[in-house]
């Protein structure tokens, strides 16, 4: 987990260049070794090396593809949780209509502040404060609901409201977890980089053995691997990069709630 924190401090473009550098250096190292060994190796060996490299590249491609799949699934989970949360808040806001005053107005104000806090947390990056304030607001909402229960003649309505409040609280946990923990674990990053370095070194070694110049295609291959790793990292980071989750649903909700001040 510390490794993840370390990776997060690197901007994505630095990560891309670092990956590219690791790939190219490994290639260069392998190339150098291959050249030196060329005299000592027979032509037949090249055939065996070729087959092995095919296998390694296949495994690398699969690992990258599956890690990409996991990162994309996490990204979707985060986006879905945000949409669900906006819906749950809206439902609770509507159902507050069934509750007696003054709880109705109080609950609506709390819900408005709740949405403000959520948006503020995502936009300013002060996640910890946002979470703490959100949980305070949840408690206050719950107290309001419990209090209105005593006053209303028809408890079925209160139950409806409480149900949506429970959902808001559950979705809060889900979003916090999806942001903090639905990440590619550090060990998988280590494995990905190990495989990439070893595969690039092997390609370099193979090129060195043949005694030709460095093939341009090798550069393309290393670029492609770096690009996929870049994309995985981008998908994996909740708050940064091109693939940031848009809080559109919450912004829309905020506007609707503001328009409905009575």
């Amino acid at each position: 987990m510390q490794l993840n924190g370390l990776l997060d401090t690197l901007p994505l473009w630095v990560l891309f260049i670092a990956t590219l550098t690791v790939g190219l250096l490994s290639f260069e190292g392998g190339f150098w070794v291959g050249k030196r060994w060329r005299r000592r190796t027979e032509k037949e060996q090249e055939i065996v090396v070729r087959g092995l490299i095919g296998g390694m590249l296949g495994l690398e491609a699969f690992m990258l593809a599956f890690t990409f799949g996991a990162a994309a699934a996490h990204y979707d989970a985060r986006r879905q949780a945000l949409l669900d949360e906006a819906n749950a808040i809206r439902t609770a806001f509507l159902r507050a209509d069934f509750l007696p005053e003054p709880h109705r107005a109080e609950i609506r104000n709390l819900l408005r502040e709740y949405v403000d806090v959520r948006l503020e947390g995502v936009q300013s990056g002060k996640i910890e404060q946002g979470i703490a304030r959100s949980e305070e607001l949840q408690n206050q909402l719950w107290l309001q609901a419990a209090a209105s229960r005593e006053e209303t003649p028809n408890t079925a309505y209160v139950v409806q409201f409480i149900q949506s409040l429970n959902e808001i609280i559950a979705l809060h946990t889900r979003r916090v977890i999806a942001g903090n923990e639905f990440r590619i674990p550090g060990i998988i990053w280590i494995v990905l980089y190990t495989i990439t370095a070893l595969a690039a070194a092997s390609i370099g070694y193979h090129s060195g053995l043949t005694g030709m110049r460095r093939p341009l295609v090798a550069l393309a291959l290393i670029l492609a691997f770096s690009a996929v790793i870049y994309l995985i990292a981008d998908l994996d980071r909740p708050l940064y990069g091109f693939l940031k989750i848009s809080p559109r649903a919450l912004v829309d909700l905020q506007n609707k709630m503001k328009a409905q001040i009575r």
Partner: protein
Amino acid sequence: MSMRLYNMVDYIPLWALFAITLIIACLSFEGGFRIGRWRSRQKEHEREVVVRSEVGAMLGMVTFILAVTFWIASAHFDASRQSIINHANIIRTAYLRADLLPEPHRTEIRNLLREYVDIRLEANRSGKLDYAIARSEELHNLLWAQAVAAKDKTSNPIFAGYFIQSLNELIALHTRRLAIRAEFNIPTAIWVVVYVIMTVAVFAIGCHAGLTRARRPLVVTAFVLIISVVVTLIADLDNPRKGSLRVSQETMVDLRKAMNSANH
């Protein structure tokens, strides 16, 4: 018995698993290499070109099997992560809904739920899962008895029904988590297949290299290392309670804190 077989790989520390895999792979390469060399000295031996395509196919198979097993293991890891979140959420919901019940059941239920979370956290620290499971199931019964008693006393049965709903869900999730723990592990049969295919394929690569009468290629080291690293990663992912990949208990810890602060 079958339960024990299931988790055979679980008992070996990860570094040992890595070393064992590496040794198996190196030995099968060396064995294949020697046999290939010996065959190449005989009058009638295999054509290298034929062996080449066979080895290629086997390499493809190893790659594929490892990749799919990696996928299964990481899905399993995600499932256990997901089930912790669901569990914490439903406990919190039940805890809040206990507010709707009359005293003394409210306090009693809250105490039981606190103990429920404590037991789970404790089991995760100490690893004494069997005790935790038994005690959890006792607590389910106690909670249920409280809910039934509260139902008769409350003026409004809707609220009691509401609490009971979340209690039912809590019990159902407990069962689900047990299932994830017991069954979603990669079974020994799959591990056996992984190791057999890996050994055979590396052996075939060795044979091929021997048949060419060339020296041992350096790249084999890289190949064998990659395979061992991936196998170790799969074992690490597959057991969420061991190794560097543990499912975080943060949600449960947070829940326990929230329960303390809501102690009214």
